[in-house]
């Protein structure tokens, strides 16, 4: 009986609830019907923003000068907003890298790989804040698109062959003094996320075996010295940018958004790092043949690649530092097209000529290779050239992955050397070949547009060759120095037992996948 009573009560309460909800719903509909025809102030948006919004001594009646000031301010404001928002997009490439690198490595190391990708962001940023930015942009001169501020004006220069060779800048440490300026802060944010892109590339090539403490020290060096010095030579008004003015080599070394400055830098650091740190246990057999060590999460790698491709719109189109430079449409479209042909080329190459399967991890590498290769030339080439550059990049990356593993005998779990190093170099050369002379008038202080070899300026191609050679030599040597230094002081390798067990607990103290039983795929292969 007791049970029956409570059942009735429950039923009654349910009925009450139903009528309550109906009542509420009816009240909502009545209210909406009542307010639907209320007066709209400016629903079409045509009347908002007019003469009274221009700052003027007499409100609503601005003088011509006051109008001109507002127009100028607005133009620079558009450039600021564009550059900042694109910087935010590039910042979002960090999780892209984290996912690609972690997806292509084993489940027993996910905490470690993710933590490296995470901590490089703060570590690199602070290093860049302390002195990296000053060394890179301290001698930049006028920041044209951001209002013409000229406070970053101290470049350390040596004289060679009777010409000045700018080596590094000396203003803007800690963003204080003359660097405490809105244009400089915009530059810092935008350039910082570029530096962090370089910095996070080697964490993939050195994944699954690198001591976390060694990685942290590397993170400081890449942000303070390795990246900023070469960056100064190309983007900070240094000697590579001046090759045009000083030696009549095209427009000097031109790298629109960083095929060499960002990606080749990261690739060369990866190359040296993979060589010094050595392969993962079990990667190579005694006869030199390689054992595959499958990554644990293809979906993660694919999503990471998409995130990177999304962030790349900020990377390339944002590098105008100007939303009012309408070339941004060409840049963004070229970027998109090269990513597509890159992915297509590597898919077809694997499918037709290599394993006879359309390999997903190689498709991802192919898309990234296309993006890296179009990064330097994106502003200077037409759409057909962009497609060709992506196609070549997609094949180049696959063959390079084979070459690095089978000929160089280097262990690069994610293909960072091939994607960023090889295709970064190729991207710079592609600019020297395909730049069609429709853009870049006055680039690096040289009159006329940027033209490649195929459009009549072989000297531009020559300048590109000098640029990538300088990159390889400088970045190679300084990273060799840094990696050797770390090796001597604290050592790069985790102990073998930790590497076999997985670095998550020995290095980080926490498993990445708690409560998940790992299968045979997470084990280390036996070297034969």
């Amino acid at each position: 009986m007791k049970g029956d009573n409570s059942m009735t009560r429950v039923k009654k309460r349910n009925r009450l609830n139903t009528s309550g909800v109906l009542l509420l719903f009816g009240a909502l509909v009545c209210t909406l019907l009542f307010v639907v025809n209320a007066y709209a102030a400016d629903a079409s948006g045509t009347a908002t923003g007019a003469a009274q919004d221009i700052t003027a001594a007499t409100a609503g009646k601005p003088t011509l000068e006051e109008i001109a000031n507002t127009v100028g301010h607005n133009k620079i404001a558009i450039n600021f907003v564009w550059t900042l928002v694109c910087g935010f997009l590039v910042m979002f490439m960090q999780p892209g890298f984290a996912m690609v690198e972690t997806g292509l490595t084993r489940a027993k190391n996910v905490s470690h790989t993710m933590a490296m990708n995470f901590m490089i962001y703060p570590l690199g940023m602070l290093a860049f804040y302390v002195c990296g930015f000053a060394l890179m942009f301290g001698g930049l001169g006028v920041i044209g698109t951001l209002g013409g501020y000229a406070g970053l004006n101290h470049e350390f220069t040596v004289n060679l062959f009777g010409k000045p060779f700018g080596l590094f800048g000396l203003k803007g440490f800690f963003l204080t003094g003359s660097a405490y300026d809105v244009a400089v802060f915009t530059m810092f944010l935008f350039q910082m996320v570029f530096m962090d892109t370089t910095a996070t590339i080697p964490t993939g090539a050195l994944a699954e075996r690198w001591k976390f403490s060694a990685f942290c020290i590397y993170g400081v060096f890449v942000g303070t010295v390795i990246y900023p010095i070469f960056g100064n030579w190309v983007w900070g008004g240094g000697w590579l940018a001046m090759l045009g003015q000083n030696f009549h080599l095209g427009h000097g070394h031109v790298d629109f958004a960083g095929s060499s400055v960002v990606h080749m830098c990261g690739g060369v650091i990866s190359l040296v790092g993979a060589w010094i740190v050595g392969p993962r246990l079990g990667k190579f057999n005694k006869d030199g043949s390689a054992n595959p060590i499958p990554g644990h999460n293809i979906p993660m790698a694919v999503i990471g690649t998409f995130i990177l491709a999304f962030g790349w719109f900020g990377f390339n189109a944002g590098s105008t530092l100007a939303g009012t430079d309408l070339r941004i449409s060409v840049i963004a479209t070229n970027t998109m097209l090269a990513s597509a042909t890159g992915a297509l080329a590597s898919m077809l190459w694997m499918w037709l000529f290599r394993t006879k399967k359309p390999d997903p991890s190689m498709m991802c590498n192919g898309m990234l290779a296309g993006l890296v290769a179009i990064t330097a030339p994106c502003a200077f080439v037409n759409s057909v050239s962009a497609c060709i550059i992506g196609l070549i990049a997609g094949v180049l990356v696959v063959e390079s992955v084979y070459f690095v593993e089978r000929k160089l005998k280097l262990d690069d779990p994610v293909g960072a050397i091939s994607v960023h190093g090889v295709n970064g170099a190729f991207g710079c050369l592609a600019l020297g070949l395909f730049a069609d002379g429709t853009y870049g008038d006055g680039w690096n202080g040289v009159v006329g547009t940027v033209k490649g070899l195929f459009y009549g300026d072989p000297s531009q191609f020559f300048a590109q060759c000098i640029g990538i050679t300088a990159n390889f030599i400088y970045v190679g040597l300084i990273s060799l120095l840094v990696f050797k230094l770390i090796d001597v002081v604290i050592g790069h390798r985790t102990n073998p037992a930790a590497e076999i067990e997985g670095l998550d607990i020995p290095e980080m103290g926490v498993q990445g996948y708690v409560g998940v039983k790992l299968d045979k795929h997470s084990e280390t292969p036996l070297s034969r």
Partner: protein
Amino acid sequence: MKKIEAIIQPTKVDAVCAALEAAGSGGIMITEIQGHGKQKGLKQQWRGTEYKVSFLPKTKIEVVVKDQDVDRIMKAITNAARTGEIGDGKIFISSIEEAVRVRTGERGDIAL
């Protein structure tokens, strides 16, 4: 009493269980296992290099039945698990000395 251990494809578990229910079998034990048969695993590729996966995921189904039911149950499993491809699995049959129902302490066939 006999124990029938059937190592089958994981995709065939539902079909085999349904066939066992239909054939009137009592309790069923299922274990996810890894292993290989005569073919010694499977070839896979990772970034352009082939490698062998020596242990494949399989499912082991165990049932203990009366002696007279062995043939019927075994046939039910074989029919339900067969695809005709390599890797369909194996069935092993062994004798069971004794069975005890924990709740009542009953022994022998009645405990099944």
